[in-house]
């Protein structure tokens, strides 16, 4: 007989449109992070480190990279005879075939998956945060409180609380009230979007709310359970970083190169696992200069790297200068090219003698709320021809040629989008 005390459902179907061209052809949880990882490695590693060995990963938007990354779960020890990792895309039914229309709707459509494992508790996770968390101690809290639902919360500075959904609790940590992005927050306990449900409660709520359009945990399921049962707030105190915007994504990558990073990947305890496709060591040439950087396996550095996060297999050509940038797996930067504050996604080719991140800052003409902070953002598999100058707050996606750059220049605030969904 199959029985799992707690299984996890990981919502990985979102696009993450605020990451701009980085997610134009991959889902946000598949975006590279910290040199060799992908965002989804953090919740997956947390699961196995917490003793949760059954994880359903719900995919929808551009799942190919996620599927190849997760495979049968070998890197996380999630290749199990019973349980392990399962990819759960939306599927056709005899009637009512539909996409996942909301977070709770996605879980509802996989009721049978959860039933198969006969769990007592179900852990609901998202795929867009960087953190190390012991879900087992959250479960202990849930059991101790005999809660129907436990919501993971993190104390934030009260002046920032208005950016989050906050929970107002009594002394026993039972949640009395929720406030979504309150102007005058009465609590600083922000919701992390992580829930433990007692399985019976979740099942009942999902079935009851199955006709709800775009059924969502925050908007529908939690209020429903709040009316009928007890929701407790588990307080997590540790590093937790949203990487949902280009700015926060860039910042949390840069925090890893601090002398003693707040989020320390070098600890023996609570390892983060990932699929390592590149094994060899990196080569640092005679003429290279590296100051404050983390660099992935198999990279070759012939130029200068300052304050940057360099992924596996990246080649930085001779006389290059790379500053304050994130360069992802397999990208090649041609000789004599200067890169200032850029995020360059996987398998790009940046030509020789280019200058990225130059000129005065001008707000982005297309999506100023996404492409800002003076950053250059280049989507995966892009090509930038030799000898071009690229301004700040710019976005490039796809194979560009010299014809795309009038007088060899992409002015600050401009974009060239030739591949992927134009989002």
């Amino acid at each position, binding site marked *: 007989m199959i029985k799992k005390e707690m299984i996890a459902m990981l919502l990985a179907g979102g696009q993450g449109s605020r990451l701009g061209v980085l997610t134009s052809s991959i889902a946000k949880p598949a975006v590279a992070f910290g040199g060799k990882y992908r965002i989804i490695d953090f919740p997956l590693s947390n699961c196995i480190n917490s003793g949760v060995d059954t994880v359903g990963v719900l995919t929808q938007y551009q799942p190919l990279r996620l599927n190849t990354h997760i495979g049968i779960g070998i890197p996380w020890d999630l290749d199990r005879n019973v349980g392990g990792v399962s990819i759960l895309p939306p599927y056709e039914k005899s009637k009512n075939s539909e996409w996942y229309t909301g977070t709770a709707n996605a879980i509802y459509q996989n009721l049978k998956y959860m039933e198969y494992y006969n769990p007592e508790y179900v852990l609901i996770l998202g795929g867009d945060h960087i953190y190390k968390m012991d879900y087992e101690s959250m479960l202990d809290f849930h059991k101790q409180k005999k809660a129907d639902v436990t919501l993971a919360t993190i104390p934030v500075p009260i002046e920032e609380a208005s950016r989050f959904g906050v929970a107002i609790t009594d002394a026993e940590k039972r949640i009395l009230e929720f406030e979504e992005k309150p102007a005058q927050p009465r609590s600083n306990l922000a919701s992390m979007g992580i829930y433990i449900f007692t399985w019976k409660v979740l099942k009942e709520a999902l079935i009851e709310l199955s006709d709800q359009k775009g059924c969502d945990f925050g908007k529908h399921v939690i209020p429903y359970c709040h009316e009928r049962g007890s929701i407790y707030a588990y307080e997590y105190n540790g590093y937790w970083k949203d990487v949902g915007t280009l700015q926060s994504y860039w910042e949390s990558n840069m925090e890893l190169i601090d002398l003693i990073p707040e989020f320390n990947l*070098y600890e023996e305890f609570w390892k983060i696992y990932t699929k390592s496709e590149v*094994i*060899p060591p990196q080569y640092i040439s*005679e003429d*290279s200069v590296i100051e*404050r950087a983390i660099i992935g396996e*198999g990279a070759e550095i012939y130029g200068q790297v300052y304050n940057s996060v360099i992924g596996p297999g990246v080649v930085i050509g001779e006389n290059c200068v790379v500053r304050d940038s994130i360069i992802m797996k397999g990208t090649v930067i041609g000789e004599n090219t200067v890169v200032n504050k850029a995020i360059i996604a996987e398998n790009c080719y940046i030509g020789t003698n280019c200058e990225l991140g130059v000129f005065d800052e001008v707000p982005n003409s297309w999506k100023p709320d996404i492409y800002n902070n003076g950053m250059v953002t280049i989507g995966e598999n892009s090509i930038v021809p030799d000898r071009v100058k690229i301004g700040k707050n710019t976005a490039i996606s796809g194979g560009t040629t010299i014809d795309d750059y009038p007088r060899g220049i992409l002015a600050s605030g401009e974009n060239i989008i030739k591949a992927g969904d134009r989002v």
Partner: protein
Amino acid sequence: MRALGIILAGGNSGRMHELSNKRAIAAMPVAGSYRAIDFALSNMSNSHVQKVAVLTQYNSRSLNEHLSSSKWWDFGRKQGGLFVFPPTITNDNGFWYRGTADAIAQNLTFLRNSHEPYVVIASGDCVYKLDYNKVLEYHIEKKADITVVTTEVTNPDELDRFGIVETAEDGRITNLQEKPLIPSGSLISTGIYVIRRRQLIELMEQAAEEERFDFVKDILIRYKDAKQIYSYKMDTYWSNIASVESYYRTNMDFLDKNIRNYFYKEYPDVYSKIDDLPPAKYNPGAVVKNSLVSSGCIINGVVENSVLFKKIFVGNNCTIKNCVILNDVHIGDNTYLENCIIESRDTIRPNSKYVGEDGKIKIVVQKDDRFSIG
């Protein structure tokens, strides 16, 4: 599948000095992220040899640890798989492996119970890439009884470690001398053989009966005229690491771009156990020139012309030149290292100085408790 594989990984060599005190040569870390046996195992896997036996004997703990899962080389299969055979006491045998032929002879059941028509025999202490199918095709084309893979050794100082091969025009081996004092040529046996399985069983049964235990002396040399033994010459990179000098040189070879690209970038890949270490980190004070750096390293000092294996901490104000530093080494502040091989899991105290004088390589084995020093 046409062939099964046997990897001889039981050996020790006095030429490795202290380096073999804690592991078999096949388990020696090589080229930053690998162990010596990864090359033979990856060649087997990439040649679609799906069933491989590793024969171990000497100091096999660290080798067993490395082979604890077969999935890294894709041997976790229903058909075939990876088998590790140490010597065992049985009803009719109470001996250790008394030689390479004896090691195979003691595992004849494995050979008898298989159905693959050919056997590829390789040793676990060589660094190379080879498609064994090419050797097998040659073997079949020549109608050979045994095919020996050979290569030219360019460094004359190394010749006395190998078997020297002389061949006729058509590749048939006319003479084979094991480690002669005065080598008659520079073509050597790499210790890689292809042989028909039934032929191997027959030869091993015969050798066991006559109490002959060495594959080179008692099979190759003894049968050189009685059997058709052919030489398959490989002309790509091949290196045997079983001496301190060649171990050091082989690691340093990877600083050469051509050799690096050949192993790291060209098809097919070499596989190894994944250690889940974070990317290498360069802190202020790090100056790294012409070096290989593996995952999990944290560098605060100067590193030149060196190979840093996994998880090495280089303290502030250190200088490391022409060194090979094995896995999981902590180097305290203000340390100076030159021409050294630093044994794995060493802790080098702050302000230490180790120099291999006159171009000689110094092996540093330093077992201080990491957490008791300041």
